[in-house]
């Protein structure tokens, strides 16, 4: 077994689609949200919406880390890139995201000091190979990715790598889900919960969704068969009148999650209120580097200041541009991220805004809802 192809078998996917048709009550409508961008991408790529009955609607959620990263984070990264002897290390997904004025990609052409890395450990190696430079790693991602950054931070400290810094823009999923269900608009009957976020945190942090709000949940894998079975399990929960958190992706997700990774997260990060593009500031939804590791925290070592550019001591003051959001141009990414609107509702979709020339973040990331719609629907 390779654990991929088996879960893309067309015959088996059709079997589950039939089961879904049998299980739904034709008099009801079902509104499900796939929280994670990787699910959105998979649903679009494998055409799963066409296999669902007309009364089962899938909404896309805010689980695309690149999409919810606020413009101000990109602006800060670009400002760091303008500093002398500084290299920005980032995952590839981030380079095309527009800031207020530029994206990292546009700056890269000019400065040449933006490096795409596959892993945080590659960024750490970059620091060791370039002792005369300061490496600033852009820490973006949910609970899946954050432990890998935490591991690099611990390693930088223990090995005494003194030119490695992290700008932490990490976010955690459950508080964002809480904000969504509290809003009650749009109506959501069930969540397809993230696969690999849940591999780290387990099932328990989602219990409040069913217990307090009576909404059904299934943690589903990213392959098409996983998603279809997840939808089937949601319908069963609703028809049985028993909302809970089920794990469809039980080949990877354990109820208690990955304790080693959880402990590393707790060791390195504190929780902090964080801004989500489209959702606003959500209480305790971000991760801030603990004081013990402040030597590595970019925000503690590089001071940001508007208008003037000057250098002070070990840190440096950097210039931040005026925040001009894509919303100014008519982008409705914020509503798309909450499941309130679909890409087709946006006047820019496919016209002024395409994957080659994205305006809003939902079109930038390959896992953004707009990009998934543009490429596959």
């Amino acid at each position, binding site marked *: *077994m390779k654990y991929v192809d088996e879960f893309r078998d067309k015959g088996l996917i059709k079997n589950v689609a039939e089961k879904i048709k049998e299980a739904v009550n034709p008099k009801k409508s079902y509104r499900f949200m796939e929280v994670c961008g990787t699910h959105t991408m998979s649903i679009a790529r494998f055409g799963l919406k066409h296999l669902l009955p007309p009364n089962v609607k899938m909404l896309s959620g805010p689980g695309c880390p690149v999409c919810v990263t606020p413009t101000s984070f990109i602006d800060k990264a670009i400002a760091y890139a303008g500093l002398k002897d500084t290299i920005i290390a980032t995952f590839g997904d981030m380079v095309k995201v527009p800031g207020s004025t530029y994206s990292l990609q546009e700056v890269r052409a000019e400065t040449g000091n933006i490096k795409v890395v596959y892993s945080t450990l590659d960024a750490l190696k970059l620091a060791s190979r370039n002792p005369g430079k300061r490496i600033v790693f852009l820490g973006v*991602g949910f609970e899946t*990715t954050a432990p*890998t950054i935490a591991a690099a931070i611990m390693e930088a400290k223990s090995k005494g790598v003194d030119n490695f810094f992290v700008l932490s823009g990490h976010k955690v999923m459950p508080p964002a889900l809480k904000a969504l269900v509290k809003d009650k608009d749009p109506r959501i009957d069930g969540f397809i919960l993230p696969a*690999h976020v849940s591999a780290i945190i387990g099932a328990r942090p989602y219990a409040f969704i069913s217990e307090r709000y009576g909404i059904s949940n299934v943690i589903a894998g990213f392959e098409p068969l996983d998603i279809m079975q997840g939808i089937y399990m949601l319908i069963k929960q609703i028809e049985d009148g028993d909302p809970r958190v089920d794990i469809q992706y039980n080949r*990877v997700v354990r109820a208690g999650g990955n304790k080693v990774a959880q402990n590393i997260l707790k060791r390195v990060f504190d929780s902090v209120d964080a801004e989500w593009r489209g959702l606003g500031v959500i209480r305790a939804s971000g991760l801030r580097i603990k004081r013990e590791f402040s030597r590595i925290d970019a925000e503690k070592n590089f001071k940001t200041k508007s208008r003037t550019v000057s250098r002070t001591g070990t840190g440096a003051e950097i210039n931040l541009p005026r925040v001009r959001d894509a919303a100014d141009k008519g982008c409705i990414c914020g509503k798309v991220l909450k499941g309130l609107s679909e890409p087709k509702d946006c006047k820019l979709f496919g016209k002024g805004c395409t994957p080659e020339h994205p305006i809003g973040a939902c079109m930038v990331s390959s896992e953004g809802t707009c990009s998934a719609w543009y490429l596959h629907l």
Partner: protein
Amino acid sequence: MCLAIPMEIVKIKGDTAMARADGLEREVDVRFLKDVKKGDFVVIHAGFAIEKIDKKNAEETIKLYKEMKR
């Protein structure tokens, strides 16, 4: 961004292992896993193995889908 790829562990030394999928091998970090050994399948995200794949559960899931045939 939360994609993780199933790979098989082919060699392991401390926290570093070599993992293989589709004939390609790469170095991965296994510090998040206890008792990982050669021959285990793991899911890799950003160079780190984030969890082991439970073979029995995977096989049971596929069996369940096959039984769904009408």
